């Protein structure tokens, strides 16, 4: 549709037009190239910036659990573990809630209620993450520290196997609090993806199930979910990507301690919060390089998760197109 029509034009203005056309197309393509360069440049700059840390420590950079700017020893393990732990907590809480919200918005709510409620949930995603951080630190953390964590410590802490996860001082700030705040931030993303994905299920599929006497729950569980499985997982991965890279909210509530504690109630740190806290003050080149190396690790982790998420979401769009 794009090129062949130039031939139809009258010669003189057509010639000028086609020259302009070429310049215009080139400008548009250049802008598209910048999009590609931005992503590649981000990866390359951190890999380059982190080379000193990688060279100095080798694999120990990823496996070492000591992060001591004074002694110039930098191991990323605690930060990596903190990032993964908090994101995992966030997903465990956010996925069922997001699913419930998506279910509410597609099957339960009366039609007039769907747009406003959907919009309100999406607005939750737009609130700046620093606000979540302040809310987490000043409102949620004291609440958890006073009322929830002592109870958790007493009851869940005594359980076999998983008990150690919940033993610790009820400070209020720590990995579990960070995971909870992240969960709140992830819900609107996963919920809106799930909603859109559920809406792509052909209504004749659902109608025939209803005609067989299925309940609404059975239609959702046995028809809608299997049909959309890949895309739903893609949506969950999208939320995971968000949770892994989230910075300000985590920085406020995680406690920023390089401790190797297993307990979720203890303070910890994450890659993003370590960078946010230390980067502007890191004068030692090795310290700075280590933080850039951390950034590269974060980029790699989120990149893999996001690519997986997009591939799964794309697959659904393709099927939707062919159906």
């Amino acid at each position, binding site marked *: 549709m794009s090129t062949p029509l130039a031939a139809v034009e009258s010669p003189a203005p057509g010639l000028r037009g086609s020259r302009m056309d070429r310049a215009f197309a080139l400008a548009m393509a250049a802008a598209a190239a910048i999009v590609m360069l931005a992503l590649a440049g981000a990866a390359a700059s951190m890999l380059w910036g982190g080379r000193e840390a990688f060279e100095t420590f080798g694999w120990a950079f990823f496996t070492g659990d000591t992060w001591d700017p004074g002694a110039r020893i930098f191991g990323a393990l605690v930060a990596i573990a903190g990032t993964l732990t908090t994101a995992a907590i966030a997903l465990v809480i956010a996925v069922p809630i997001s699913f419930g919200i998506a279910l509410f918005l597609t099957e339960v709510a009366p039609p007039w209620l769907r747009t406003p409620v959907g919009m309100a949930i999406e607005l939750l995603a737009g609130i700046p993450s620093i606000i979540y951080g302040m809310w987490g630190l000043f409102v949620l953390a004291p609440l958890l520290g006073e009322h929830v964590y002592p109870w958790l410590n007493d009851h869940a802490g005594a359980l076999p196997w998983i008990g150690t996860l919940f033993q610790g001082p009820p400070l209020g700030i720590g990995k579990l609090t960070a995971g909870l705040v992240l969960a709140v931030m992830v819900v609107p993303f996963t919920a809106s993806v799930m909603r859109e994905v559920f809406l792509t299920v052909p209504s004749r599929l659902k109608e025939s199930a209803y005609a067989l006497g299925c309940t609404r729950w059975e239609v959702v569980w046995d028809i809608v979910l299997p049909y959309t499985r890949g895309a739903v997982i893609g949506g969950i991965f999208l939320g995971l990507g968000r949770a892994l890279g989230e910075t300000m909210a985590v920085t406020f509530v995680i406690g920023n301690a390089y401790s190797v504690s297993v307990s979720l109630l203890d303070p910890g740190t994450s890659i993003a919060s370590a960078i946010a806290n230390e980067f502007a003050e890191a004068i030692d080149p090795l310290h700075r390089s280590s933080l850039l190396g951390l950034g590269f690790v974060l980029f790699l982790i989120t990149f893999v998760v996001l690519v997986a998420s*997009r591939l799964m979401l794309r697959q659904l769009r393709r099927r939707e197109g062919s159906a």
Partner: protein
Amino acid sequence: MNMGLQRYRGFKNALAMSLAVLAAVLGLAVLGWILWTTLSRGLSAFSLALFTEATPPPEMPGGLANAFVGSALICLMAIAIGAPLGIAAGTWLAEYSRGSRLGEVVRFVNDILLSAPSIVLGLFVYALVVATTGGFSAFAGALALALIALPVVVRTTDDMLRLVPAQMREAALSLGLPQWKVTVQILYRSAMGGIVTGVLLALARISGETAPLLFTAFSSQYWNFDPTQPMANVPVVIFQYAASPYESWQALAWAGAFVLTLFVLLLGIAARLILLRNRIQHD
């Protein structure tokens, strides 16, 4: 036996539906809770001085005026860089890359960039600008925010242009207009609502971004309009003041947080209303 199964299925259905309602109520409650927190805690620092006076030393009266102005400047610079680039790249995707493999790849990369952690983009701009020019600057902050705004604008422009019916292009091209004129004068006009939405959403997204500004624009306690110097901005000031032990600074942080949240939410609502109206028109 049969009745029992029926009852069990009905019970399971009712339980699932109630849990769904509960999840939605929970989501709305958290939204209300956060809004209430910022409002009630920020109220004590709410006065005319908030918008007219600069950031004060601890325990002194003052406002956030320099931070508001700085944020506005940085965001405007970011949009001035990011929006034209994003619209152009979106145009290329929708109008020039049809069906091509390369177009699919660019669209994919843009999607990745859309959800990439903002702190990573901040580090990129740090290495690109701050490390080479030797200091924090408002311009570097604007560049970092532009990189965050870019994929939002690309995505919406691409989507909106693809919604424009093919007949419109064919009719205009058959009148002998060159393609660039068709794009600028007809397709842009028709997709205007959607493109504006994209820019508004991008503005909403960047105006609260804190992490990338920490090591690009940094912040400043003073009035400063020089884009090559650190500049005060609302998110970083909120971050510094909220983490401080001074009550007056904390109150200012909450007041700033409230204004920021309100601004972002209003932008988000405006953008979605425009989009909603646009969708209905096209259907």
